[in-house]
């Protein structure tokens, strides 16, 4: 509850800063301070200290898992604001409002990580999405940004419609919006759910697949990520996407009976096979299409689809290992992607050729970029390796569908190709990579971030110990 209220309050404060604080440069410092207090408030919540006493009628349930994910999301946003906050001031006159919207998005993330009622799921998704439509279209004179905003908005509203239909049908089948009652209804009816509930769940899953851009519902992703201003793409592809997965994993638990053994037959539909197909399609589309891209930004958009395929494994296996895994994955993926986008923002040319010879001109940038890319590819000693390891291990633990692991490893090998193309361009090709002015503090930030990624890669228990602590 702390994070929800504090982030909303900070959103309002940033809105007032827009006209009370004249110095444009100080907005991002205020925002960074706000995020720090938000992080503290959330950690206090983990420790059981509540700043606000609010009766939520059991609509929200603050589990350790959700709160811990909140901390990760807030921390990633803090890193994001510190590294790229300055770039946001380029778009439009009122930079403080972008920070406002980011705080509101975080409010949505906090609701999504704690919802226990379908109403809260709906509201959380909307609080998360509506600010993002604005952020996508923030470059008002740029046609690409306009187009991306309109596409994102139409797809988002459409998938919200599907989600609402799903919720309504689930309500018709079970008579409640509370997740535990929905779950209990599944058990009471034996192993087969009513037609209404199965259709409702399907609608819900399709709409969530839209939100986390799983194939075949991914088609909006490359266009939106490519068209949105690069600074905001970074935020959309990391924190927001991970939050979508946290919401999705909670929803998926609905299909699981309490014992967790008989997952397949719960609702008379083979959900695991359904998810396996979804995963393979997502991995296939993401990885294969990324290979053929000429623009690094668009390649990263497809790679984010491919990474979503890996995160879907957590929804497939739904055991303890999967829950740990999705946390490690959110850390690894968010940090690496924020880093690579922070470098990308500084580049003048987003094509692969634009990176030619970067290592000679900006050795620090190139080295940090290499570590981020290695982490995304899942090379050992970086955070990405353990993230992928946990995901695959969780599938093996379920005991079935081992062939899925083999397919995933093959696709991870494909992903190495397109990530290494950037590294190759930076180190082994001659060219004049032109960047904007790089400040020493930015370089320091990148070095610290890559050190953090390697640290998590060497000791993933650092992330997880805190979870159990």
């Amino acid at each position, binding site marked *: 509850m702390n994070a929800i209220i504090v982030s909303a309050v900070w959103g309002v404060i940033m809105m007032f800063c827009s006209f009370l604080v004249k110095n444009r440069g100080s907005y991002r410092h205020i925002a960074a301070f706000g995020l720090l207090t938000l992080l503290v408030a959330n950690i206090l919540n983990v420790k059981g200290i509540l700043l606000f006493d609010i009766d939520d009628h059991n609509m929200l349930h603050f589990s350790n898992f959700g709160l811990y994910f909140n901390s990760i999301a807030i921390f990633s946003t803090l890193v994001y604001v510190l590294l790229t906050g300055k770039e946001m001031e380029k778009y439009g006159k009122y930079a403080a409002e972008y920070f406002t919207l980011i705080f509101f998005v975080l409010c949505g993330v906090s609701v999504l990580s704690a919802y226990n009622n379908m109403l809260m799921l709906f509201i959380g998704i909307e609080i998360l999405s509506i600010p993002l439509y604005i952020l996508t279209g923030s470059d008002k004179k740029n*046609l690409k940004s*306009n187009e991306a905003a309109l596409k994102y908005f139409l797809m988002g509203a459409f998938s919200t419609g599907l989600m609402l239909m799903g919720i309504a049908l689930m309500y018709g089948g079970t008579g409640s919006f509370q997740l535990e009652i929905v779950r209990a209804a599944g058990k009471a009816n034996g192993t087969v759910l009513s037609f209404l509930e199965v259709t409702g769940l399907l609608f819900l899953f399709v709409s969530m697949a839209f939100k986390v851009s799983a194939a075949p519902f991914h088609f909006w992703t490359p266009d939106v990520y490519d068209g949105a201003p690069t600074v905001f793409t970074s935020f959309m592809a990391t924190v927001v996407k991970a939050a979508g997965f946290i919401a999705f994993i909670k929803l998926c638990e609905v299909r699981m009976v309490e014992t967790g053994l008989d997952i397949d037959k719960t609702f008379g539909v083979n959900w695991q096979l359904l998810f396996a197909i979804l995963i393979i399609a997502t991995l296939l589309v993401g990885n294969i299409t990324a290979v053929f891209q000429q623009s690094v930004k668009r390649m990263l958009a497809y790679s984010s689809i491919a990474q979503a395929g890996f995160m879907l494994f957590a929804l497939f296996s739904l055991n303890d290992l999967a829950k740990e895994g999705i946390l490690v994955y959110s850390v690894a993926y968010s940090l690496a992607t924020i880093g690579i986008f922070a470098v990308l923002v500084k580049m003048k040319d987003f094509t692969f050729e634009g990176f030619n010879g970067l290592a000679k001109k900006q050795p620090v940038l190139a080295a940090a970029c290499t570590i981020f890319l290695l982490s995304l590819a899942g090379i050992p000693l970086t955070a990405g390796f353990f993230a992928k390891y946990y995901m695959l291990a969780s599938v093996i633990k379920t005991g079935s569908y081992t062939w899925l692991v083999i397919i995933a490893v093959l696709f991870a090998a494909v992903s190495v190709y397109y990530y290494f193309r950037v590294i190759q361009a930076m180190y082994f090709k001659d060219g004049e990579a032109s960047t904007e002015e790089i400040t020493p503090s930015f370089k320091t930030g990148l070095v610290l971030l890559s050190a953090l990624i390697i640290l998590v890669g060497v000791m993933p228990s650092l992330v997880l110990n805190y979870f159990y602590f």
Partner: protein
Amino acid sequence: MPIQYYITLASILFCIGVTGALTRRNAIIIFMCIELMLNAVNLLLVAFSKMPFAVLPNSTAAAGTDAQLFVFFIMVVAAAEVSVGLAIIVMMYRNVHSIDVNFLNRLKN
């Protein structure tokens, strides 16, 4: 009246909305179709809330009020969404003087 009538009506409205959203080219019309989808859901929720006994084996008399509350939330959020969506459409109209989504192909290459 049996609940099936309401379910059928809501499904038909919803399908009209989905078909329209997927086939029409005018941004405003797509938008209207999405609103139609939301209204179909509203209708369905209200129907379910008034007839809990028709679909539920063991529900109390108080059951169903939460669905009516949900409808209000959908209305409020839809209004918020409309304000952002229309702003985006106006922004696009200022730049390209058209709201035809066929214009939206610059990002393909």
